[in-house]
């Protein structure tokens, strides 16, 4: 794919991924067929900033985990008062990374 398009994608979507994943994403996009561009452009990613806000406000109810698609973990959190409050606290620090991981998985699903 055209490197201009790839840079445009990285610029507008860079914040949704870990920095170490960006190089891989760039390589994959460069090697990708042009016909997939329109599809890649339309993927909706979850914003890590949104998930940290949700985590701080409603992390004890597991809403942050439901938001990024970890339904099972969300239920676990909801049923245990946010893992006795400890898990809710730990998730304030983990949720942004987890969101980026989920985004990366989603991106990879579109590759193949």
């Amino acid at each position, binding site marked *: 794919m055209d490197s201009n398009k790839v840079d445009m994608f990285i610029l507008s979507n860079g914040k949704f991924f870990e920095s170490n994943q960006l190089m891989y994403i760039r390589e994959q996009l460069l090697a990708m067929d042009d016909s997939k561009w329109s599809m890649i452009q339309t993927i909706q990613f979850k914003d890590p900033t949104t998930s940290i806000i949700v985590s701080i406000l409603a992390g004890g*109810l597991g809403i942050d985990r439901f938001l990024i698609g970890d*339904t099972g973990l969300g239920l676990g959190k909801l049923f245990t008062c*946010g893992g*006795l409050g400890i898990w809710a606290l730990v998730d304030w620090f983990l949720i942004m990374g987890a969101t980026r991981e989920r985004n990366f*998985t989603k991106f990879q699903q579109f590759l193949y």
Partner: protein
Amino acid sequence: MGISRRNLYILIMLFCLSGYTWLVMHLDSRWANVVGPVCVFKKATGIPCPSCGATRSMIALINGDFLKAVLWNPIGLVLLGGLAIFPFWLLHDLALKKNSFHVFYASVEKKIRQKHVAWPLIVLILLNWCWNIYKGV
């Protein structure tokens, strides 16, 4: 998409371990009030969260009082069921190098995401929450 087998098994084991520690602590009257209620939501807002009362429910069930357990919080039954089954399921998987629990977890997650399952569940949990607030757990 979803959690890896290794992470899931570590997480569930931590879950069961802390769950059993918590239960044993609350079964012994000397330890029951050392930590006290930990629900952040209840402390912050003054109203109980959807799963408040689950510990008391589990204790009631262990003492053989099913009705009291349901009245405290039905979620306690689900949790105690999980605590009773999951450790053995995990051990079975680890011993035989299988991944049946991971497969089960993924299929349940997939099922819960379907609209016709998700909405009734959400309504149930909200109703249970309203009941919790009404009871003043």
